[in-house]
């Protein structure tokens, strides 16, 4: 505990850095049209133009401005990842709380389905489904959300299980409270801190999975600007020693690092509260 607390005292610089990064990304995503010099898929020059005052980061394989695509990429990739994570949480938390509160066969049934879904690696599963049903964005969102909700289910069920065995939940049951009331008033408020942390982690995971899919050419489709596919499209430049194509990958990495720093600090914070 002593060490955890000392760490807490020392870590805020990383958390602060994380928050700064996230804030920066949010601003860039929201004001993308204002910040960009050109249109999202506007072809402005020849392919693979080098860096210049006109094209700060050069142009891509089709002659579109790299910086513009990078900024729009923030908007698209983060937006879709966020929607997917929220959806995954809605599905996963409701199922998890239900399983924990109801117990018995309902818990068993949901649990078995989730076990099977989790037995298949997410990327492989996503690839399979996307091959068959196509890669339209709504499908992408639903498929990844459903797959990811299994992880959310596991956690929310585990957290809720620890809460459901508390005497205050039994008190509410003995009082005659309904299922919904118990879930909303007794379980949810106590499950919030670990779920908030998990939201950050799941967002990172979804974000990375989406980028991986896009990188493989199966995620967000052109001409929508997206960091994963930007890396893939311009990868040839790397063999010439140009690191421009790594920039979108670095953008992905920086954001997930930022979120992870915040979550890490938050987890320490809540763990510290518990110790008191």
């Amino acid at each position: 505990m002593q060490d955890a607390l000392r760490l807490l005292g020392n870590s805020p610089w990383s958390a602060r850095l994380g928050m700064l990064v996230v804030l920066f990304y949010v601003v860039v995503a929201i004001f993308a049209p204002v910040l960009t010099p050109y249109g999202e898929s506007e072809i402005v020059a020849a392919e693979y133009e080098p860096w210049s005052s006109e094209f700060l980061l050069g142009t891509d394989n089709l002659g579109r401005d790299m910086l513009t695509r990078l900024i729009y990429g923030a908007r698209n990739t983060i937006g879709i990842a966020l929607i997917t994570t929220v959806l995954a949480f809605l599905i996963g938390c409701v199922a998890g709380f239900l399983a924990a509160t109801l117990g018995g066969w309902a818990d068993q049934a949901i649990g078995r389905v989730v076990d099977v879904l989790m037995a298949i690696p997410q990327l492989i599963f996503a690839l399979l489904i996307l091959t068959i049903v196509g890669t339209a964005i709504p499908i992408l969102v639903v498929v990844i959300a459903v797959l990811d909700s299994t992880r959310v289910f596991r956690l929310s069920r585990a957290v809720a299980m620890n809460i459901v065995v508390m005497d205050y939940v039994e008190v509410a049951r003995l009082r005659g409270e309904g299922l919904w009331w118990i879930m909303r008033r007794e379980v949810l408020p106590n499950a919030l801190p670990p779920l908030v942390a998990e939201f950050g982690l799941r967002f990172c995971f979804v974000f990375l999975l989406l980028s991986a899919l896009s990188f493989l050419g199966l995620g967000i489709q052109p001409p929508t600007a997206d960091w994963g596919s930007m890396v893939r499209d311009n990868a040839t430049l790397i063999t010439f020693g140009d690191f421009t194509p790594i920039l979108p990958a670095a953008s992905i990495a920086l954001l997930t690092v930022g979120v992870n720093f915040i979550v890490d600090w938050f987890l320490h914070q809540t763990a510290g509260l518990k110790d008191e």
Partner: protein
Amino acid sequence: MNSGDSTTDVREPLLKMTGLRIEGQAGERWNEIVRGVDVVLHRGEVLGLIGESGAGKSTIGLAAMGYARPGCRLSGGDIVFDGMELRGAPEDRKRDLRGVRIAYVAQSAAAAFNPAHRLIDQFAEAPVHHGVKSRAEAEADAKDLYRRLQLPYPEQIGYRYPHQVSGGQLQRAMTAMAMSCRPDLIVFDEPTTALDVTTQIEVLAAIKDVVRHLDAAAIYITHDLAVVAQMADRIMVLRYGDLVEEGTADQIINRPREKYTRELLAVRTYRKPDAGPPSEAPLLRIEGVSARYSRSARVLEDVDLEIGRRRTVAVVGESGSGKSTLARVITGLLPPEEGRIFFEGEALPPALPGRNREMLRRLQMIYQMPDTALNPRQRLRDIIGRPLAFYLGLTGRKREDRVRELLEMIELDPDDFIDRYPTELSGGQKQRVCIARALAAQPDLIICDEVTSALDQLVAEEILKLLQRLQDELHLSYMFITHDLATVRAISDEIVVMLQGRIVEQGARNDVLTPPHHEYTNLLLSSVPEMKIGWLDRTLAEREKRRARGEQVMESADR
């Protein structure tokens, strides 16, 4: 055997801690949890450390080994063991002492034994490692000590794993392990607190015998004055990290000087006046109830019970007696396999979902652990207010006024407490809030499941008195589930004794408490430590005498 080679004067104390200060970390700050306590212990002497939670007694016990738990530090004073300063001594120097000359017996033997190794391997570890004995000698010695401590099958039991033996046996095996190097000093940290009373008396006897036999010095830490009175030559009473009073066991028990010590001594003397026989038809009647958890063996077998209006029925038994299961059956959480339950002559539906709101309202429950019985994310206003809204439909001003009234009833200032969260309350205050929440429903019967066992003794006494006052004012009936016979004596009108899912004896308080008893009731009653010096020796001698006369003497299930 280790003291022979020491060169210090025999009259020098074995352990001398002066001005001991220990700090505990809370967030960024360090708070003092032991504030300058002096402890002196002579060879062969048993020192009792007694106090309620937060008194710092365990921390002092560990400090005697030069050890502070993670999150604590020995911040001041001297710890001199046999002429050696331990505070600030290098780790390897302390390591040479620990296990060899100073040994430790933890409260929960089940957690303190490593699950991956056999008992005898863990026994032999310290003597072999410190070069005191060979492996073969250590094993032979283990068997001797197991026999001395009256463990069953002393030759074989050491080859079992910790999870294969019972709690009382583990505690004895841990005492044996502490003895393995014949230490000069053993620290016993609440060694019997987790045990049932009938097991406790046997473990106490075993510990006392072996400490006396090996002529070791001991620090015996407990919250139970009656226990320490049996074990210690000298007693130190501690509170909030300060010494309250120190003296021989006889002085402390028979001639206490301080008010706090007197309060601790008086703690089990409260008695409810006799109520006489029940007058009207019973409020709750249980007929032939049997129950089991899915697929396990039956935990309740053919239980009949009546609870009259304004009566307190104490259901007493040890762990596994089925007393808490009985509460679950009555509340409808566990529908019985056979038998019926009547409330005011009307049959209650067996399962919770079948009962209507009015039935639920009239039967409330209070739990053992107030910490887990209150939602930490709700204010007292909501905790107490919810049953008011739910059962009685009170809203707004009316609800607020009633919550305040209830807070006053449980002796908490409404202005101060109504907006607090449970984490901002002490243990006793939390239990009061649980009582207020039950009262809010205006119930006829309250089931109290071990409501005082998690509380310090003085606080528990206050709660009992509060419950009694509320019964008198509000004409409540209580079903009081407990393992603690002192509580039973204090508050019950009638007593029900349970053993392994069956009722072995029931009746009015005085009938059950005065002989002749059922054999088990006798064992139970005679095992409760009394606040008298020499009680343990007398009781054991009495049992021995009866055995010698050829009488059957019941033993705890642990043996």
